[in-house]
């Protein structure tokens, strides 16, 4: 377990900013309790400093997780956000997409979101913007990347893909063995 390097921090923040934009500062400078990012076995954990300090008691081999896992660095040093970061992303997300109940299950099975399944979408969402996906009961169920801007949306036919799937909570069941 170690703090992120300059390079890694840049990659991570760049990725996070796609979803939360300027709200990223709230994540870094928490008003309540100082939090930090820590790298452990190529995974990035976001954890309060108090817990981080306690965790140094535990040997590297024996430590499996602390705080919240945000994602992992791939071998090519790209950062991949995991669905486990959803809680924080949802809290600070700038752009959101709500999907109708009939689109919920297809999304949870890992499919992209078609126009027909979209219930609501934040105004002025640009193209290729990271969005957090909610169901109509306002429960975050994943995140993705818009394929079209809100403006374009109206002209499209119902089967057109609007949001590319990136992660969904179904992965807790599907990928339990690889996720952690």
């Amino acid at each position, binding site marked *: 377990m170690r703090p992120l390097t300059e390079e890694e921090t840049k990659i991570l923040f760049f990725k996070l900013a796609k979803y939360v934009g300027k709200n990223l500062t709230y994540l870094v400078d928490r008003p309540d309790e100082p939090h930090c990012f820590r790298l452990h076995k190529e995974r990035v954990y976001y954890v309060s400093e108090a817990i981080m300090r306690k*965790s140094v008691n*535990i040997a590297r081999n024996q430590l499996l997780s602390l705080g919240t896992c945000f994602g992992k660095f791939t071998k090519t040093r790209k950062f991949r956000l995991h669905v486990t970061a959803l*809680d924080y992303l949802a809290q600070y997300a700038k752009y959101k997409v709500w999907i109708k109940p009939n689109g919920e299950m297809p999304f949870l099975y890992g499919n992209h979101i078609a126009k027909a399944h979209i219930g609501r979408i934040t105004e002025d969402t640009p193209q290729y913007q990271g969005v957090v996906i909610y169901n109509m009961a306002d429960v975050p*169920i994943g995140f993705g990347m818009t394929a079209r801007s809100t403006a374009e949306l109206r002209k499209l036919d119902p089967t057109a893909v609007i949001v590319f799937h990136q992660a*969904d909570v179904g992965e*807790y069941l599907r990928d339990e063995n690889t996720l952690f």
Partner: protein
Amino acid sequence: MGRRQNNKQGVPQDVDVEKRTGKTVTKRTKFGGNRTNRRRLQEESKNEIPTTRALSNIELTRKRQANDPLRANGAKANGNAKKVKVGSSATTNGRTAPKKDAKGPLPKRGRNADIDEEGEEELDSEAEISMAEDEQDSDADSGEEADAALLASDASDMVSDTEDIPQPAEKRMLWDDEGSDASASDDHDDALLDDEFDEALDSDLGSDDFDSGSDFEAKSRRTVLRQQRDEAMAQAELEDAQLQTNIAGDTLDILPDDDADEEDQPTDLAMVQMRIQEITRVLSNFKEMRDPSRSRADYVTRLQKDLALYYDYSEFMMQKLYDLFTVAEALEFFEANEVPRPVIIRTNTLKSRRRDLAQALINRGVNLDPVGKWSKVGLQVFESPVPIGATPEYLAGQYMIQAASSFLPVMSLAPKENERILDMCAAPGGKTTYIAALMKNTGLLVANDANRDREKALVANLHRMGVKNTIVCNHDGRAFPKVMGGFDRILLDAPCSGTGVISKDPSVKMSKTSEDFRVLTHLQKELILAGIDSIDANSKTGGYFVYSTCSITVDENEDVVNYALQKRPNVKLIDTGISFGREGFTSYQGKHFHPSLKSTRRFYPHTHNMDGFYVAKFKKFSNTVTSDSKGPAKSQIKSKPKPKAVKATAAASTD
């Protein structure tokens, strides 16, 4: 056969018996003659058209009869000599009668003498096993039956009429065949062997016949017949077995555990159940209902054996579990273990509220209700059209599927916000996430488990439920005060034999041995001491330790807790804070525990409709392990937690 016997009621019995015995005796004498004659018969019958074969057989017989009149007479004389004997055997071996009864309808259906004969030979061999006297009887019968079948093929409508008339002729045919070589010498020694050969031969011949017959219709009919006969035989065997156990059972109701070798007898579950009920009734009012010649132990051992058989437990496990209860309660317990417990979900208060969650699930068609007054977060699911472990609500971490019993240790632990808490055996995280929810994601929660594979599920659950205050580690629980100490509260849900969750995992019934228990209890004792040593007694809010298992045996519960009390005089048992459940044992089978074990709680499947469980709550009042006096302990309180933890470890190692 029964049918035939009925028919024969009008016919003088003597004649019948004569024939039978005559036949058997001669048949047994030599198999060589039998074989040649049969083959001859076979060859001759092959020349005939299959449909008329039976008829031809009769003709053939008559021919032989004419050739060899002396044989028949000789056989008859022979039979006379045996008459008395057979008669007596028939009366003493009443139980063979029903078997024959079951066979009754067969000859009627029979179209092929060979097939039927073959079947009867099989029956014969069974009879031989059962009794020597019987052999003669049934053997003879088989011959008769085959003959009858022969006839039935031609005169299937008038079976009852034709049967009696040509039978003598038919009988004689067979005796003649065999007798011609046997020359009426009664050589009983080879009887068994000969019969076996006969059987093989018969089947050979049968198959020969099969090939020669080009009539496929007949072939298929034979196959059908064979199946029917097999079924009937199986049925007969069943009835026979039942009858045997009935005989045994009747006596055993009154005299349980009559002899030790009755174990070998085939047992039938309905019988065993009846006996269980009977013994339970006797035991409930032992003074009046007992058989005076029997001790209570006789009844109890019998009952235990029966229960083990009926519910499929090993005798060791049965003994272990039976001793925990009264007789009636033990029955309830074993019955409850066969029924699955209700599905309970726990609302994750970090992400949702019970009412909202219930509403969301009801909208999905799930039928649920609050679990009871004792929990504000539990919901009982009665039925669900969707898989309850894969709804969007579940995936979003709004609830956890969790047995009702696993709420209890956490409720007893009563975690507070901003505490430092350890869950020593955390996977798969049901209790851990409950603790985190009660802590409202503040403070520090260390989730440890020794099994790395199971920890994947633990980490997944923690993240899904939005728990952010945890450190997950993979230490052996016994390493604990060294790795990290000074906890405000610790939950030890110790690895156990799982006797409380038999309904979930029935393999426990058979798989656990005394060795498993020895290993487990040893581990539990080590873990409980390690846990107690990791607690900071000076904690302002805490200093509590909860020990729980999903087992109900005393070895793994009271015994372990009592051991901890002895080894660590700086802890005491306090009330668990759970309003229901049975009190822990303070003495059990000659062992006497500390009286404070009364404050521990036991939960049983049959009384609380949750998994069997045990919860004990300790309060650590001092960080030093001095034996009785509280004085030095008080003075130690001022010192920092760290040296205390070290001291405690040192004490543990000296133990």
